[in-house]
C-alpha cells in the first residue's frame, strides 16, 4: 500500500475542485454549454478501458483495436480542450468561462490519469 489513504483524499479533492471550476464557469454566466467539457473528460478514459483487453496477447504486441482505442482517446481529449476555445471564439460563452472550464477539465482528466496510474493492479500482481 504505497499509494494509500492520503492519495485518495488528495485526488478526490482535486476532482471536486475540477468539477467546481466547470460548474462555476457555467453558473456565473448563466450559460450551461461548458458542462459538455465535463462530460467529454469523463468519457475520455472509456475507449482505452474497453479496447485494452481486446488486443494484447502474451507477446506484448499491440494490435488494431488497441490502436483504435488510443486514437479515440486522443480525439476525445483534444475535443475537450478545443470545445470551450471554439465557443469562446464565436462569443457564445465568456472568455473567462472558457479558461475556467479548461482548467477544470484538465484537473478532472489529470485526476483520472493519476488515479489509474497510482492504483493500477495489473502490473504489481505478477511481479
Amino acid at each position, binding site marked *: 500500500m504505497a499509494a494509500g489513504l492520503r492519495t485518495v483524499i488528495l485526488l478526490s479533492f482535486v476532482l471536486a475542485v475540477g468539477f467546481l471550476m466547470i460548474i462555476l464557469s457555467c453558473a456565473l454566466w448563466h450559460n450551461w454549454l461548458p458542462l459538455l467539457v465535463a462530460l467529454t473528460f469523463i468519457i475520455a478514459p472509456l475507449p482505452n478501458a474497453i479496447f485494452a483487453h481486446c488486443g494484447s496477447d502474451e507477446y506484448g504486441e499491440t494490435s488494431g483495436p488497441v490502436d483504435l482505442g488510443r486514437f479515440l482517446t486522443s480525439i476525445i481529449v*483534444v475535443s475537450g480542450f478545443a*470545445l470551450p476555445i471554439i465557443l469562446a471564439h464565436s462569443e457564445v460563452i465568456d472568455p473567462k468561462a472558457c479558461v475556467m472550464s479548461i482548467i477544470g477539465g484538465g484537473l478532472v482528466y489529470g485526476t483520472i490519469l493519476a488515479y489509474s496510474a497510482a492504483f493500477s493492479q495489473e502490473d504489481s500482481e505478477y511481479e
Partner: protein
Amino acid sequence: NYDPRRVCLNPFPEISLGKHRRTVGVYLAGALFALANWTFLDAAVLSAHARSPWGQPDTPPPVHVTFVDWIPGICSLLGYMVIALIDKDRVCGDEGFGDSRAVWRARLILFIGFALMAGGLAGSVTVLILKYILNGYPEQFTYYGYANVSQNVALMLSAIVLWIAQSGSSEYEYNLTL
C-alpha cells in the same frame, strides 16, 4: 532484399522513437485528427454566429460557410478512412504470401485513398481562392477559407503520422530476434 522491379524501396522514412513509437504515433495522429476537424468546425460555428463587418454595424455579413466548404473535408475524411483501413503489409510488396493480385488491389485502393485526400486539399485551396480571396472579403471572413485549408493539411499530416506509426518493424519481431 534488393528487388530491381521495385521503384521505391522504402516509401516512408524509418523513424525510430524507441519502444513507444507506435503508441506515441497513434496518440499524435488522433490529436491531429481532432485538431483538424475542430479547426473547421470553429469556422462553421463562427459563421453561424457571424456579426456584421468591423466598423459597419448595419450591413449583414457578406458570406457564410455553406455546404461547398464542407465538401473538401468530407473528401479528406473518406480518403483518411480508406488509408487507415488498408493492410499495411500487403502494400509493401511482400509477395511471398497470398497472391500478387492482392498486392495490386491493395495498391490501387491505397492510390484511391491518397487521391481523395489530395483532392480534398486541392479543393480546399480552390474554395479559399475562388470563394474568399477573389471576392475581396475582409480578413474576418477569409479566415473561413484558411481554416478549411488547415483542416485538410492537418488531416493529411495525421494520416502520414498514423501510417508511419503502424508500419515498419513491430515489437513482435524485435522480441523474436532477441
